[in-house]
């Protein structure tokens, strides 16, 4: 049956390529219909270096970094790098990497997995390491509330093979609390630095799991991530096994020192923004836990540049442009904070769709602290686009932005043309949500083809 499923998947994959529909999850979807155990069967021969990454934000970058570490170490890696992080996307990645006999001649797998798909994927993949980045409210209309999501992930982890490792963000109290209740071997990573935190409105209050008191903070880095403790019973943030200190951030990248056991490593990356320190920390820690030597890890990290739509630097009509996906309040705020740190005049294009993959509810735009960003950043024009361009414009109006400087253009192609025409010296920042990013990429490819 393995052969049939793979071959059907492969045929679909070919037809997807011909019709140009991306095909990041359709082949897997159809193949799984023929063989529901396809993932388990294909991945069976791989015993080591199976990594799963989940969490609300950072999973794409973190999994990209881990895949790059493994590749640099000479492994051949299956990676669902197009961000297709449901079960079907994982099946598709495996099908694409298998031959027509259903044999997967690879020695590592790196999968980013949507929180809701964790139980089923854990059962099929039997990962060696599970990395959890953080929990924020994301597309609430699809998953219900945050506590329920955390609970689901925790339950899924109870089915891990005995010798699997769970790597958790110590600074994010929802994530760290998972470590208290699972039997697996747990490692933590975290920041210990006096760097200035981000003033963010996306704070999720966590209550002490022992005595139900509100956690308090000695230090907040962003959102609810920081050094927290319970003032009542003394429970506190777990002491991280991997620590980042001496963090230095600017427009060109990130430097920090990483402490592990009695060793100190100097990390350099071209990624930008404080939130990427966490992604780097997670990926490096996973690399160390996979016994990859440190010089290889550093080499991979230093040369890593993110995939399409994540901090992508490009030009639109020869104007300098940076593109970054935004999909929830904390991601939006982190991006704005990073842009603000550039200290340069900006023109923005914000594109918001409300398709199923985006979450139908766009209320979250009001949870983003745009007021703080606009008060400290020089922004000349903002074009709003997508199906919810008007909602975004209203949000900007109430954040105090001059409505004469807002242009509502639903068509993303026209919006991109317009923002470029409006731009002189400014840096253009294009901030699309999930399905809008697809339209932005399409525009860029067309522009590239015209050259």
């Amino acid at each position, binding site marked *: 049956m393995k052969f049939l499923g793979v071959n059907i998947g492969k045929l679909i994959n070919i037809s997807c390529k011909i019709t140009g529909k991306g095909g990041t999850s359709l082949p897997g979807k159809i193949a799984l219909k023929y063989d529901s155990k396809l993932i388990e069967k294909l991945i069976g021969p791989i015993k080591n270096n199976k990594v799963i990454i989940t969490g609300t934000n950072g999973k794409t970058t973190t999994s990209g970094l881990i895949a790059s570490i493994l590749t640099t170490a000479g492994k051949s890696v299956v990676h669902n790098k197009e961000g297709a992080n449901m079960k079907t996307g994982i099946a598709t990645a495996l099908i694409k990497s298998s031959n027509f006999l259903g044999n997967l001649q690879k020695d590592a797998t790196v999968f980013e997995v949507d929180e809701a798909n964790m139980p089923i994927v854990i059962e099929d993949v039997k990962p060696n390491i599970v990395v959890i980045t953080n929990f924020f409210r994301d597309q609430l209309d699809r998953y219900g509330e*945050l506590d329920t999501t955390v609970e689901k992930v925790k339950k899924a982890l109870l089915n891990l093979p005995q010798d699997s490792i769970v790597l958790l963000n110590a600074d994010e109290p929802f994530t760290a609390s998972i470590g208290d209740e699972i039997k697996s071997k747990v490692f933590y990573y975290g920041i210990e630095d006096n760097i200035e935190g981000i003033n963010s409105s996306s704070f999720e209050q966590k209550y002490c799991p022992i005595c139900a008191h509100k956690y308090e903070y000695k230090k907040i880095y962003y959102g609810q991530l920081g050094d927290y403790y319970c003032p009542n019973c003394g429970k506190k943030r777990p002491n991280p096994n991997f620590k980042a200190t001496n963090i230095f951030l600017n427009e060109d990248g990130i430097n920090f020192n990483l402490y592990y056991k009695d060793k100190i490593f100097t990390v350099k990356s071209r990624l930008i923004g404080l939130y990427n320190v966490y992604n780097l920390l997670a990926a490096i820690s996973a690399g160390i836990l996979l016994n990859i030597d440190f010089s290889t890890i550093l080499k991979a990290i230093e040369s890593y540049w993110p995939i399409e739509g994540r901090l992508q630097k490009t030009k639109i009509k020869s104007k300098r442009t940076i593109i970054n996906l935004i999909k929830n309040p904390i991601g939006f705020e982190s991006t704005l904070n990073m842009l603000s740190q550039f200290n340069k005049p900006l023109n923005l294009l914000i594109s918001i769709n409300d398709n199923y993959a985006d979450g139908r*509810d766009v*209320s979250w735009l009001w949870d983003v602290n745009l007021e703080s960003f606009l008060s400290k950043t020089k922004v000349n024009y903002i074009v709003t686009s997508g199906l919810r361009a008007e909602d975004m414009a209203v949000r900007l109006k109430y954040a105090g932005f001059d409505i004469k400087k807002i242009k509502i253009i639903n068509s993303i192609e026209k919006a991109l043309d317009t923002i470029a025409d409006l731009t002189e010296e400014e840096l253009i920042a294009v901030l699309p949500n999930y399905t809008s990013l697809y339209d932005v990429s399409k525009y860029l490819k067309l522009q590239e083809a015209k050259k």
Partner: protein
Amino acid sequence: MKLVVGHMYPDLLNLYGDIGNIVALKKRCEWRKIEIEIKPITLDYTEEFTDIDLLFLGGGSDREQKIVSDDLKNKKGKNLKTAIEDGLTVLAICGGYQLLGEYYQTLAGSKLEGLGILKAWTIAGNRRMIGNIVIDTNIADKNFKMVGFENHSGKTFLEKMEPLGKVIIGNGNNGEDKTEGCIYKNVYGTYLHGPVLPKNPEFADILIETALKRKYGKVELTPLDDSLEQQAKQSLIERFVKK
């Protein structure tokens, strides 16, 4: 003129962008040079509600909803009831709306007592009512459409209470009788997130005006240019309401 807005449990009830309602009240007062103060009302607040002109109560997750419900019943309920009977303007959304009713019946059948200010009760349902909602409303002698996003599984039924509006698209109170929300004196309960006030500036102004009238007598609000808000509303109505 000064409007004092009481924001009930800002750290507990803060789901689905409802903070946007506070932002809308704040900006719409500031644009008219009306002084506005936002007063957070937290668990330790024990005062009466006599200094408050407009009270906002949002929704929270189950855990937070329980904490709030206990606090309302044990500490604030009596004062709140007195103030409401005296004409306090209240906007209660989703979970907050349910709390003002008589009870909430869980799937298992047990009843959690509410404040009983609204003659309304809520029964937990199996189906989550999620999606865009458009209603037709007629309040303060104004007839207009309101848009929002609803996300609830509780079904609310009214007894001899006036609904906030009639459902055109979506579920509203219970998905059965086409009613949405509830009006009692100056209390407005609704399931509309979105958030409701910046999306429906007419409604925001009715709340501001009602609250100021109670304090200052006759009040005439300066009209604002709401063409952007109306454009946003219209685009949704055109998308979702079949002609």
